[in-house]
């Protein structure tokens, strides 16, 4: 049986652990640079303010004291996430973390076959030990467990076990609520008459293979109760790795842009290496503000796609191939608000093809350098070691006006008790 455990309104819940005054109140956590809403408490959701709403529109609410905002405190969220995963290990060694607030737990049996009771115990333990309320869903496949979890969250117990015959349930579930079916795919499926999860589950496989791809076929099988997505199958789900940030203040100098892109490449490459991947190329993009003086000109984007000479994971090599393209992205006189990089064409370390021009020895050496860099960054904190291109003084660091203390990761920011 597979259980999906995920934190309710995770970032807000994290903020509430050490600030009990936020309980029962409308609270929202803002994205990088205090840009927009990325997590909402139930009370905030009741105000009908959507996810992604920009903060500047909500400032009057904050000023009036009706609603509480917090900046993203990733250090805190990461630490509490780690604790939730650790707590789940009390129930099974087979815990598969999927995102910062979600994990699949694999169990072969529950005492008295009472999965509902087990789900309740899991929920109670995580709430007690870490202070994070969770929803728990049990089902024979990951895709069904995700659905069970969604249903469970709406129940007072927070737990739902998928019935042995879920056909009725799936017939009532819109197809776009199925894990792995995005909005675009859902639109296409609907035009072809597949409107519910039930319809997807029973659709002809050959037709699905033709209309979609193998992942869609596997999703349909999972809906029928046949496990398809094995452990840690990142290649099935993540086709790209990216890093993007909004700048704290508008950036105009080319050197600053260049430096920040190098920093993002570093960050994303860290993730890439951690997953044991190399990238075939990268998309780099910049977003600039509209101008109003001396006359109006629209805001917009510049972007470029760079295919590497061979699959890369080492920042030094990547920057060598990326740098020549950067001047073409830069428009003199524009003020830049955001930049991002997206790696594409990921391939796993093992079993990758050697190209005719691959320099195997050099790759081995740069792999070792990358491994050492990662270790140093991990031990002494991110950003300890960075390529020279990244610079030391980051004038463009992001704004976090509503940041709560690093309660669990800094000795001088511990919560206090009188």
């Amino acid at each position: 049986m597979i259980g999906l455990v995920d934190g309710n309104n995770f970032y807000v819940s994290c903020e509430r652990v050490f600030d009990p005054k936020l309980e029962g109140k409308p609270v929202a956590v803002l994205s990088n640079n205090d840009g927009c809403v990325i997590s909402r408490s139930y009370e905030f959701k009741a105000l009908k303010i959507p996810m992604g709403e920009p903060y500047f529109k909500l400032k009057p609410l904050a000023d009036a004291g009706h609603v509480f905002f917090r900046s993203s405190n990733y250090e805190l969220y990461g630490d509490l996430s780690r604790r939730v995963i650790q707590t789940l290990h009390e129930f099974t060694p087979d815990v598969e973390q999927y995102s910062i607030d979600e994990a699949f737990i694999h169990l072969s049996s529950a005492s008295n076959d009472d999965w509902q009771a087990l789900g309740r115990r899991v929920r109670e333990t995580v709430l007690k030990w870490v202070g994070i309320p969770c929803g728990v869903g049990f089902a024979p496949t990951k895709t069904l467990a995700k659905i069970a979890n969604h249903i469970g969250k709406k129940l007072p117990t927070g737990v739902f076990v998928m019935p042995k015959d879920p056909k009725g349930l799936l017939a009532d579930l819109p197809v776009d609520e199925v894990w792995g079916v995005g909005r675009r795919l859902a639109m296409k499926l609907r035009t072809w008459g597949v409107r519910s999860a039930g319809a997807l589950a029973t659709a002809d496989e050959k037709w699905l293979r033709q209309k979609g791809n193998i992942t869609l076929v596997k999703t349909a099988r999972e809906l029928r109760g046949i496990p398809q997505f094995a452990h840690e199958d990142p290649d099935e789900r993540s086709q790209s790795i990216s890093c993007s940030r909004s700048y704290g203040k508008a950036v105009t100098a080319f050197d600053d842009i260049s430096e920040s892109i190098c920093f993002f490449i570093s960050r994303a490459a860290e993730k890439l290496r951690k997953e044991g991947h190399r990238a075939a190329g990268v998309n780099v993009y910049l977003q600039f503000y509209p101008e109003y003086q001396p006359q109006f000109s629209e805001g917009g984007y510049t972007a470029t796609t760079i295919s590497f000479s061979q699959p890369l994971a080492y920042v030094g090599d990547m920057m060598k191939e990326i740098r020549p393209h950067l001047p073409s992205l830069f428009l003199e006189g524009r003020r830049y608000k955001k930049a991002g990089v997206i790696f594409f064409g990921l391939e796993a370390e093992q079993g990758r093809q050697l190209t005719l021009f691959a320099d195997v020895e050099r790759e081995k050496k740069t792999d070792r350098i990358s491994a050492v860099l990662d270790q140093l960054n991990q031990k002494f904190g991110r950003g300890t070691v960075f390529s020279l291109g990244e610079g030391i003084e980051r004038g463009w660091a992001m704004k976090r006006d509503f940041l709560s203390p690093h309660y669990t990761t800094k000795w001088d920011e511990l919560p206090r008790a009188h």
Partner: protein
Amino acid sequence: MTDAESKRSPLMASLAVCGFPSPAEQYVESPLDLNELLVTKPAATFFVRAAGDSMVGVGIREDDILVVDRSVDPCDGMVVIACVDGEFTVKTLRQQEGQVWLEPANSAYRPIRFAAGQELNVFGVVTACIHRFRVH
């Protein structure tokens, strides 16, 4: 904060360099680890800074670091971190004859009692207090 995942286990240590059999050669234990001593359940253990002097009587002083374990069930006589009116307080939990209250360890402070229907909200149980002395 690190996980107390290190377990003390005997290490085989062969002191071949010395050229003579050492009585300690049987096994060598790993060094004493404060995490192992003070943190039983890393996932549920948090550190809280003590403020004020309401608990000097049990040896908790201003700025001491309290080791707080949320996995322990609070009961009568334990020192706990509780949440009262949205603030954290450190007090001894008292539970007797159906009554629940929070007791300070300083005569200058009054116990915190709970009105009917008011719920006691315990953050965690204090299992240790770390006091650091000034060193020049």
